[in-house]
């Protein structure tokens, strides 16, 4: 595990605090989408297909901060769209860091060096650039549908690390990926010096152009076992080891769709980061009016049948850690041994 101790402590005290208050449902990471505009059009992405006038819009910093305060999570992930295209990204990050939120700025890194040169960001334990990397050069450039992006991202990662920033990678794995190539990719990222890696199987967005390359549940288990059964000592993952065990088929978890609530220009997205079944005006309305039992693998909902994505199941893994002595022991063992 590569999550810094201070961050782990913050999350642990937050979760325990929620449990002590008897809250049955609480969020863990806010997915804050200030805009949908992006400088890539990846085949697996269902986030950016909107009319031009929608793509031109973005949230105000004040709207973003109101959402952060409303849901109160200790961590804020900023995906999009491409957040470095958000005109006020520097101010937004600065405000979040001032609130001691752990920020994961999810970027394709095409604009990262330019923004670093412009002085938009200051290194902080609260700020991590989470760079989208879907594999080695060939796989990544194919996933993002543009050649040269991998090399640009690697250059940007080096530069951000040189300047003292925390850098992690986030990887979405699709059908047909070669486990040995993924293992080489992990080696390459660790050699680059990133703090840790995050990964998740892809979700088959109904609006994504590529519908043929998403993993089904059994194949997901097989793939992640092939990748992670013999983990190398120097691999570091910036995510729950229990979630990685879940991907390998070692746990049968239910989804926690409220764990990573999503806020964007339409409002609070029902029920989760991946499905769009409507919007609530406030976080309280989202929590109170969403029929949560209709979602998740065990609900029988067709849209959730094969989903094993981090935004629904990593919160479950965190709950597992703090929900029982066995869960806590599992996490400690996996963390200490480095074996998910």
């Amino acid at each position: 595990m590569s999550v810094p101790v201070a961050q782990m402590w913050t999350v642990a005290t937050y979760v325990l605090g929620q449990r002590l208050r008897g809250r049955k449902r609480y969020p863990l990471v806010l997915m804050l989408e200030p805009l949908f505009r992006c400088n890539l059009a990846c085949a697996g992405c269902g986030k950016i297909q909107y009319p031009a006038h929608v793509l031109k819009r973005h949230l105000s910093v004040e709207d973003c901060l109101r959402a952060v305060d409303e849901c109160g999570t200790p961590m804020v992930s900023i995906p999009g769209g491409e957040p470095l295209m958000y005109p006020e990204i520097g101010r937004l990050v600065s405000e979040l860091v001032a609130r001691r939120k752990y920020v994961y700025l999810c970027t394709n890194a095409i604009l990262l060096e330019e923004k670093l040169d412009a002085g938009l960001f200051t290194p902080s334990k609260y700020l991590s650039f989470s760079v989208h990397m879907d594999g080695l050069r060939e796989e990544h450039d194919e996933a993002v549908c543009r050649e040269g992006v991998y090399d640009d991202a690697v250059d940007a990662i080096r530069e951000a690390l040189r300047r003292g920033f925390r850098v992690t990678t986030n990887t979405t794995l699709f059908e047909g990926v070669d486990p040995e190539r993924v293992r080489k990719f992990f080696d390459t990222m660790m050699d680059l010096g990133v703090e840790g890696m995050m990964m998740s199987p892809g979700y088959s967005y109904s609006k994504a152009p590529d519908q043929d390359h998403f993993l089904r549940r059994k194949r997901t288990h097989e793939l992640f076992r092939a990748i992670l059964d013999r983990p190398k000592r120097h691999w570091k993952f910036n995510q729950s080891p229990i979630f990685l065990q879940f991907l390998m088929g070692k746990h049968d978890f239910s989804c926690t769709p409220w764990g990573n609530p999503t806020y964007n220009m339409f409002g609070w997205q029902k029920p989760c980061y991946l499905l769009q079944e409507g919007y609530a005006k406030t976080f309280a309305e989202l929590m109170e009016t969403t029929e949560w039992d209709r979602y998740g693998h065990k609900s029988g909902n067709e849209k959730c049948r094969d989903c094993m994505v981090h935004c629904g199941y990593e919160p479950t893994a965190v709950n597992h850690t703090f929900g029982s002595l066995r869960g806590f022991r599992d996490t400690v063992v996996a963390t200490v041994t480095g074996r998910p």
Partner: protein
Amino acid sequence: MIAPPDSVEGWEPDVAGPADLARVIELAFDYRGDVTVVGRDGSEWFGYLFNRSAAAPDPYVELLDPAGDAPVRVRCADIRTIRFTGRDTAAGKSYAAWLERKAAAKDA
């Protein structure tokens, strides 16, 4: 129940009753292009229909108007039909097209 065409882009459904309207609203909510909401009195609202609630005490749809800042809310009771007037931005095979371009570039 009204039957939509394979592609709803350009579709101007003839809504016969509440069930048809409910179906058309769901299709418009799922559509990644602009639509024109046509009122019973002939008025029209154009924009991206991003939300709807059939469960609200007074069911409604919400649109983002290309010219305006704030969302526009229209009561379902006031809607005669919804025309799918904007381009479907989710249509197409960009991944397949990219693969074809890549294969063609390799062959060249």
